[in-house]
């Protein structure tokens, strides 16, 4: 790493405390924006450029984006141990909460309104996902003129025709990268 500029020393407990708090207080998505605010704006642990490069990586790599960006941040701050701590702190507490909610839910699963309530929440979360997809699509279309075509192909193959994910991704990924290299 060529960056020799002195940075505030971040300890492993600090990394753990921050990511555990983000994991436990965020609901229904949007964690990346929250992490950005805490790590870049409020604590100055990373520069904006460092964070955005990491976010780009987190999005193209497999795996949940928010876990990938946590690993990237932890790695930048404190190497291997930092990335392990960040990912575990983000995952473990909400995992326990989620299973506890599920156990509670089983005891009350005969309640009809609870199913309606959860179905409503799921519908709201689908709307949230669509809005994220919409923004990502708008962004992709600005830099890559084949973006709408690739998006439509993937949606028809996986969403409508319900073809298996693995072969579709393996066939389309090289094609998508190839057409994106052509000048807009």
């Amino acid at each position, binding site marked *: 790493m060529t960056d020799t500029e002195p940075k505030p020393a971040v300890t492993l407990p600090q990394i753990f405390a921050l990511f555990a708090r983000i*994991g*436990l207080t*965020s*609901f*229904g*998505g949007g964690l990346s924006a929250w992490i950005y605010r805490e790590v870049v704006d409020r604590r100055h642990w990373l520069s904006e450029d460092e964070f955005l*490069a*990491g976010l780009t*990586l*987190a*999005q*193209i*790599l*497999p*795996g*949940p984006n928010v*876990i990938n960006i946590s690993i*990237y941040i932890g*790695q930048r701050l404190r190497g291997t141990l930092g*990335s392990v701590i960040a990912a575990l702190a983000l995952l473990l507490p909400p*995992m326990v*909460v*989620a*299973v506890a*909610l*599920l156990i509670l839910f089983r005891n009350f*699963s005969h309640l009809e309104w609870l199913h*309606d*309530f959860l*179905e*409503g*929440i*799921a519908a*709201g*979360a*689908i*709307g*949230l*996902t*669509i809005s*994220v*997809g*919409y923004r*990502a*699509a708008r962004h*992709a279309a600005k*830099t*890559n003129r084949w973006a*709408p075509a*690739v*998006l439509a*192909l993937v949606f028809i193959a*996986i*969403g409508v025709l*319900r073809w*298996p*994910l693995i072969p579709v991704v393996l066939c389309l990924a090289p094609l*998508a*990268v190839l*057409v994106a290299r052509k000048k807009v």
Partner: protein
Amino acid sequence: MQDDDLPWQLVLVFTPLSLLSLGGGQSVIADINKQVVDLHGWISQADFVDLFAISRAAPGPGSLLSTLIGWRVDGWTGALVASLAYFVPSSLIAFAVSRIWNRYRGRPWQGALEQGLAPLATGLILSGAFTVLLSSSGALSVWSIVAASAAVFILRPKLNPLPVLLAAGLVEVAVSALS
């Protein structure tokens, strides 16, 4: 199927999906759904929709769906095995790439990869949303909530999702009570 095999079966389902979840956990929801409900018959479709809703209502990453499915299939062992199988493979890749990335920052292939895979990942995200929508009750109220919620979040991207999701739940309860 013998119970001894269950943890191993969970690994076989979740590890490949971990490595192929381009664009985040959303993109493989359709395939998780197909495998645990249609192929293995571990849980019913109604169960799956409930687990999906809980994973969204709980704090933390939505990808905790894998933990919940594991728990439902094989208790705490299943929760642990499914979580590890789903989170560790992609995390190892993220870790390795994080280390290497800065050495090569600014090279043209980085831009090409990023721009090429972005629409593919977006298509996967939208397919996941569409699949879960199709597996819901399909009531008019559900479609309306999806549309309203999408509109709200497109117009106000920074909005805290929790109150909107809770409101969505309450609306569905009210609509069912009235009809």
